[in-house]
């Protein structure tokens, strides 16, 4: 049971972390990035932030995987 609980806890914390980070990125994009003057800069910065979140998820996943393997 403890081993099952450990696996559930570790991966649940991971999901919670990614969810919180995504909401943070959404708030930053909507509240700050979309107030930037130029449309092209808004698109570039906004998409870069979403892309950065995705890249972070990719890198952190590999880190967690290598840590436990």
């Amino acid at each position, binding site marked *: 049971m403890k*081993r*099952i609980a450990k696996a559930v806890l570790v*991966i649940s914390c991971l*999901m919670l972390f990614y*969810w919180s980070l995504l909401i943070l990125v*959404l708030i930053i994009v*909507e509240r700050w990035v979309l107030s930037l003057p130029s449309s092209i800069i808004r698109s570039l910065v906004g998409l870069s932030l979403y892309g950065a979140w995705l890249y972070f998820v*990719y890198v952190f996943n590999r880190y967690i995987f290598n840590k436990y393997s």
Partner: protein
Amino acid sequence: MSLPTWYHIVILPISFVITYILSKVVIYVCTRAGIVAVDVHKLNKPLIPTLGGLAILGGFLIPTSLLITSANYRLRSIVIISTALASSIIGLYDDFKALKGLTKALLTILLVIPIIIGHLLNPKIIPLGRPVVPIVGRLRLTIIYWLLLPLAIAGPANVINMLEVFNGVMPITTSLCLTSLTLVSLLRGKIEVLPFTLALLGSLLGYYPYNKYPSRLFTGNVGSLMVGSIIGCIAVMGGLEFVTLIALMPHLLNAFLVISSVKGLRERRTIGSRPIVIRNDGLLEANKDPKAPYTLTRLILFIAGPLTEKEIVTVLTWLEVVASILATVSGILYPPGV
């Protein structure tokens, strides 16, 4: 005009009963026809009848096709039924002929066509664009939304298909996902997709007794692709894109791990090394081969050590419970009136 309350109450048990009965029929027919698959995670490698997805399809289609008689639900029903049938055909072909990973992904991208046609015919009944997210409200996505839209159906279809590797995982995780979608729809007062979530939930619950450990019936690609595409369709039609994304997080994590480790979309059978190995005592453990693909299950086994198949399913179920809670919380955090 919305549907009468009694319809929402009876649709779940009706779907349950239809799927429960059809599952028995599928077991009988597939066993007689030799349409079986190996249960690879058992020592004795039993042969299990497959194509259980056809039972789920029947349990979903029969009650939802009645909605075509309602003027308000006709277009939604036609769109969702078309998507379900199209994805079932792709899945059925994959079950018999084994499509390449990239081919399957590209075909599932085409599943967005019914929803786009539905939107063009009546944008009020099937609104697209500007998805809602927690706290912020409606996103100001324009061109990007249309570029990402094909993934809204193909994504859930493929990620659910990819995690469908253990007895009972698909029906239990997707049922939990649908429960959170149902709750959020009720909380928001947006009940247009409620008949569809309840119909699919009923079907999955009716199917679960046959698919749970130890399985007597496998879903097949026909089922997992179809269930995923219906969930994607519900997400888009009901404005539940973000909630669905979060509710399917275990599936997405798994898909992300797999795709990043095998460097692309590859069919399971073409990947040489298996992520999990079965020991002589029947326990499953993570393959230590560095060439083995990263999967969520392999990560679970690295963290927890060797587990039985039932224990792995318990972990995946609990992860889905957590994801569904996060999805429901996301729905609660939507700004009012959106």
